[in-house]
């Protein structure tokens, strides 16, 4: 599904953010990526849909290399839920925001409307269709951001800190949603407890390198590993 080989990424200022990442993820897996701030989590995620491109190394999604020629197909396959929903919800109303991606796919308007209504209904948020995201709570915004991605039916969904800043009630709610998804999921966070609950496999990165890769329960209980990587 996802295959990353020898991925190195250097920012223009020379900062080496990813230093030789090798990773394969199979269909349907739910993979957690943990590491302290600045370890390279977000940089890695932005490579998965081609927003950033490797300095050296290759990435392919369902055997399609991530490059300019395939970029549209890649973006259809890989949905991204960003950390701050304010960065993602820029249309004036909830339904326009969910329709945004669908219209970009060139779907006819009646189909767009159907799909938008269906996803809002699934999330129990039909009443929000004409609301402005700007006036909603963080937990509601997070759900709408996810709905806008799910409606595009991606094969892989990438989450950056999905539960950051949520209060405990919204966090529980969102964790249930995460657990219920069938797609391949990549979830970056420094919240070990959430990662332990929603993923089966966990990868630890530190200074742009993969330090460990194993079953979630083994990694999360390996205090020595977590401590040396600033995670405990």
């Amino acid at each position, binding site marked *: 599904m996802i295959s990353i080989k020898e991925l190195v990424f250097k920012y223009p200022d020379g900062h080496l953010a990813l230093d030789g990442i090798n990773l394969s993820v199979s269909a349907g897996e739910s993979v957690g990526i943990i590491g302290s701030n600045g370890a390279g989590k977000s940089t890695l995620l932005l490579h998965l849909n081609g927003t950033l491109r490797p300095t050296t190394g290759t990435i392919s999604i369902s055997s399609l290399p991530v490059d300019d020629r395939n970029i549209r197909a890649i973006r259809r396959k890989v949905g991204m839920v960003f950390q701050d929903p304010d960065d993602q919800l820029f249309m*004036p109303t909830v339904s326009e925001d969910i329709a945004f991606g669908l219209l970009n796919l060139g779907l006819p308007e009646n189909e767009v409307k159907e799909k938008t209504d269906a996803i809002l209904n699934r999330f129990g948020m039909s009443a929000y269709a004409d609301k402005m995201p700007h*006036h909603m709570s963080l937990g509601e915004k997070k759900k709408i951001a996810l709905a806008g991605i799910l409606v595009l039916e991606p094969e892989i969904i990438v989450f950056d800190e999905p539960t950051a800043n949520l209060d405990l009630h919204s966090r529980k709610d969102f964790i249930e949603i995460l657990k219920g998804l069938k797609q391949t999921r990549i979830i970056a966070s420094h919240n070990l407890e959430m990662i332990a609950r929603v993923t089966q496999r966990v990868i630890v990165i530190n200074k742009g390198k993969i330090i460990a890769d194993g079953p979630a329960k083994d990694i999360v209980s390996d205090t020595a590993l977590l401590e040396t990587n600033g995670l405990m």
Partner: protein
Amino acid sequence: MHIPDGFLDTKTWVALSAVSTGFVALSVVRANRKIGEKHVPLMGIMSAFIFAAQMLNFPVAGGTSGHFMGAVLAAVLMGPFAGTLIMSIVLAVQCLMFADGGITALGANIFNMGVVGSLSGYLIYFLLSSAIKGKTGKLIGIFIASWASIVLAASACAAELALSGTIALNVALPAMAGVHMIIGIGEALITTTVLTLILAARPDLLELTKI
């Protein structure tokens, strides 16, 4: 539209530097008189906002891209003289940090975008939004004002290059004004969308103290 150094002759850049200094000084006086404590950080953040918004490129016909200028938006939200100040600061920082526009040409660039762009745009917006009542008037006003601000600023730029003997007016004016009549549509659509969003989300922000 940012003129570098060396493209204007002495009489032109000196004269425009003097004119722009005058307008900036007038705006500073008005700002000092009307600015509240709260506006101190706001004016700086608004300059950063215009700068950041200018980074969003949009495609124009033929593979080229334009970007948002923001003079009319700044003037409508914060007042025409605040618009002049904000544009002047954006241009000065662009000149220093990104070598976008020259130092001796800074006066000309401020004149084109900060004075012509901001003041004429505001005037058009003011007249149209007073003539046509309600939200429609505001939207029509800002659409036409933004389009005109781009075309006028580009024409002023062409006229300055011609006065300096760099390019003949009969070449520069049609070329600059023509291209910017198209880019201006982008500016107008963007600015109108911005105003629509603000009217829906935070209409109170249109009632800020104007300078």
